[in-house]
């Protein structure tokens, strides 16, 4: 059977996220409890978590989480990393042996910073340099796959039910200010850990529930800008689109949301002239980054979390608030299980982003 990336595999899913706007850190237990409620939305073929604020002691270093199929792939990858980065710490990612999780690859973590000479030579900014190196490993080194590459954050994922994946990675031992989780219901057996979600590039991580109908239009457009879609999954292409629009093109997150879940033309026509001009511009300029078909996504980024539904709201997504904590999940039950007494709970409209930032408020 062909593995993820060699074939496109649609999947349904469950997503959940928690963020503490005050920056207070919580343990990974809570998010496991939340995603476990939605067990039936996954089928045991993929689960994972993104956790922000978990590496304060290494917050200035890129935390690379890497799957290896073999010792030789590890050797080749480490040689590559040594040539491009100063590796200040490396270790196996701690895991727990469990009967539910099998066939694990070698799972390693590196804290790195670009070698100044290499960086200067590349004429790239630091983040672009890091992103390019990640693509190099993932496309050129057979058997090595960087699945997390942000600073002070990390992705943990595997083939299995999400609650088992969380325990496998001992998520309860990490403390962060934001967690997202994903349970996957793919429509065949990928059997490859890299295909599980979240998908991440630099500090952007995406968990996604849905199957987008614009996939190939989005993929072919984004590949023109130097991205390479190796997994053929929606989440991968959505992550690249967000990275492209936010990091490379300098759009604000609300603008990013207006591109990927663009208002309908007839809505734009009713806007005030100034607002209308901006939205017309964004739709024309970034027409290939419109994401069509059902999706609900949680986008983790440096300093916050954004939730967004497709413009017709073809996937469920609920937001709850309690004090500084904001909870977002596919089902309200997944919020109630960890916080039964909410100040506020609502379902955002299709195409209406919910952007929660550290230090308060929505933006």
């Amino acid at each position, binding site marked *: 059977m062909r593995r993820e990336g060699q074939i496109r595999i649609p999947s349904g899913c469950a997503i959940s996220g928690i963020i503490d706007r005050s920056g207070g850190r919580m343990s990974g237990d809570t998010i496991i409890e939340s995603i476990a409620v939605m067990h039936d939305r996954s089928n045991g073929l993929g689960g994972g978590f993104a956790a922000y604020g978990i590496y304060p002691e290494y917050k200035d270093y890129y935390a690379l989480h890497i799957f290896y199929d073999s010792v030789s792939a590890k050797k080749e990858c480490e040689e590559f990393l040594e040539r491009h980065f100063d590796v200040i710490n490396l270790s196996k990612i701690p895991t727990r042996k469990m009967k539910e999780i099998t066939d694990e690859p070698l799972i390693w973590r590196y804290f790195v910073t670009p070698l100044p000479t290499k960086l200067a030579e590349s004429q790239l900014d630091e983040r672009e340099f890091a992103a390019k190196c990640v693509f190099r490993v993932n496309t050129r080194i057979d058997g090595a796959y960087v699945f997390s590459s942000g600073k002070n954050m990390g992705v943990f994922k595997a083939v299995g039910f999400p609650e088992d994946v969380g325990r496998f990675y001992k998520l309860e031992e990490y403390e962060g200010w934001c967690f997202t989780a994903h349970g996957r219901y793919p429509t065949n057996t990928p059997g490859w850990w890299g295909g599980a979600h979240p998908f991440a590039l630099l500090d952007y991580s995406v968990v996604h529930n849905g199957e*987008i109908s*614009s996939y190939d239009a989005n993929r072919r457009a984004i590949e*023109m800008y130097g991205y390479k879609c190796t997994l053929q999954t929606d989440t991968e292409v959505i992550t690249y689109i967000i990275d492209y629009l936010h990091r490379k093109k300098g759009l604000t997150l609300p*603008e990013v949301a207006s591109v990927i879940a*663009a208002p309908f033309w007839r809505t734009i026509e009713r806007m005030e002239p100034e607002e209308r001009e901006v939205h017309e511009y964004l739709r024309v*300029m970034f027409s290939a980054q*419109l994401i*069509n078909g*059902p999706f609900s996504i949680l986008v983790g980024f440096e300093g916050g979390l954004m939730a967004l539904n497709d413009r017709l709201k073809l996937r469920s997504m609920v937001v709850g608030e309690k004090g500084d904590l904001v909870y977002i999940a596919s089902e309200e039950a997944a919020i109630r299980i960890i916080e039964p007494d909410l100040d506020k709970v609502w379902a955002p409209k299709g195409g209406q982003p919910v952007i929660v930032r550290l230090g308060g408020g929505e933006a």
Partner: protein
Amino acid sequence: MAVNFLYPEYEVARNYDRCISCRACERQCANEVHEYLEDGGRMVCDDAKCVNCHRCVSLCPTRALKIVRSGNTYKINANWSGRTIDEVYRQAESGGVLLSSMGNPESYPVYFDRILLNASQVTNPSIDPLREPMETKVSLGAKPRDIERDGNGRIRNNLPPRLSLSMPVMFSAMSYGSISYNAHESLARAAEALGVLYNTGEGGLHEDFYRYGKNTVVQVASGRFGVHPQYLNSGAAIEIKMGQGAKPGIGGHLPGAKIVGDVSRARMIPEGGDAISPAPHHDIYSIEDLRQLVYSLKEATDYQKPVIVKIAAVHNVSAIASGIARSGADIIAIDGFRGGTGAAPTRIRDHVGIPIELALAGVDKRLRDEGIRDNVSIVVGGSIRSSADVIKAVALGADCVYIASAALLALGCHLCRSCHAGKCNWGIATQVPELVKRLNPDVGYKRLVNLLTAWQHEIKEMMGGMGINSIESLKGNRLMLRGVGLNEKELAILGIGHAGE
């Protein structure tokens, strides 16, 4: 007695039980096929003059007429078809180049008919266009590389001039002269009513039609007929015609018989002489020259109009398109070898150029590989026959399509392929006043509006089925396509999988 080598290919079959000798057919046929014999009190006809345009068939009040294949056959020969033999006879007689009209009718593969569309089932929902918004609006033109913001951080609109269309279909270039005043009026009014554009072709613009400017593409071809500053500034966009799918490598050809009155005025050439455009533009012998013409036209119009460069689909179309995408042009129009024409040498029409599906797939991929797809929009024609072809073209990577033959069919054309004779019984490809008036623009424009409205409904249905509610999300979305009965190489060029994989 002279030997006549040619036996008519078609025969007018008259049912005398139904014929009431009303002589309508006689009056309707500019080719003088029908005649009333006072002696016998019955209608007779000369099949040799019949072009099979069905005017008499459609107008006969008792349905007494039909056109059938004459069935006269040469001795069967797999190498020498009847048509080939006839053409040898014809050339042996005339010593001339064979002329034809409309698109290549030969049996080359039609790739659109070997491509199937996707629909949603279970894993994502199809969208119901009767109940949900379904967007077919498209915007054509170049895009800047980066966004810009003003001092307050507001995004500045740095888009160059663009075309906005209610659906991804435009009427392709057909000159005033090759088609009639009433045909032009029908196209212009339909374009306005539909929120799309029509195209003047290379014959200049009749002064009556300047009022449709915002729905008009004005064309500049190698003959430069009717090109002047007011003309250039009157349209929404300017098209440089480098080539045409029906006759790649040669210029336009309008027989002198059609250059009468207003046609001669609009073209700014004398009446009665053939208008034969040079094969190349004599100021464009290479790609760098094209860039100069693009910018000359932009200068002449104060950078207010997008410039389209139209080329025929030929073997190295991708490389040519890549050059055009760096020439300052905003839109590339590619015309496939099935594209129609009012007059072309038969050999060129039938043997030069490549299918639009392959050309489009190649160009779209090439421009993406080079990272310059955003520099230009792509419009394809030659030939788009239905809304399904539109959808398939967009999914292969086109921003928009051009239609012309389908538009003429809507106006009554029956593809008799005799436009060059100038005696179109339907009032389309003629300048004979009695014939022109047969096409009522009030009816003609409505039929064009009907056609594209119907197509738009069908496009929405098919998009909805795929779970797509905006045409942008279909553009280049080749996963929505599968080939059937195509070989590996064809699939690779089209960039699609085979049905079942």
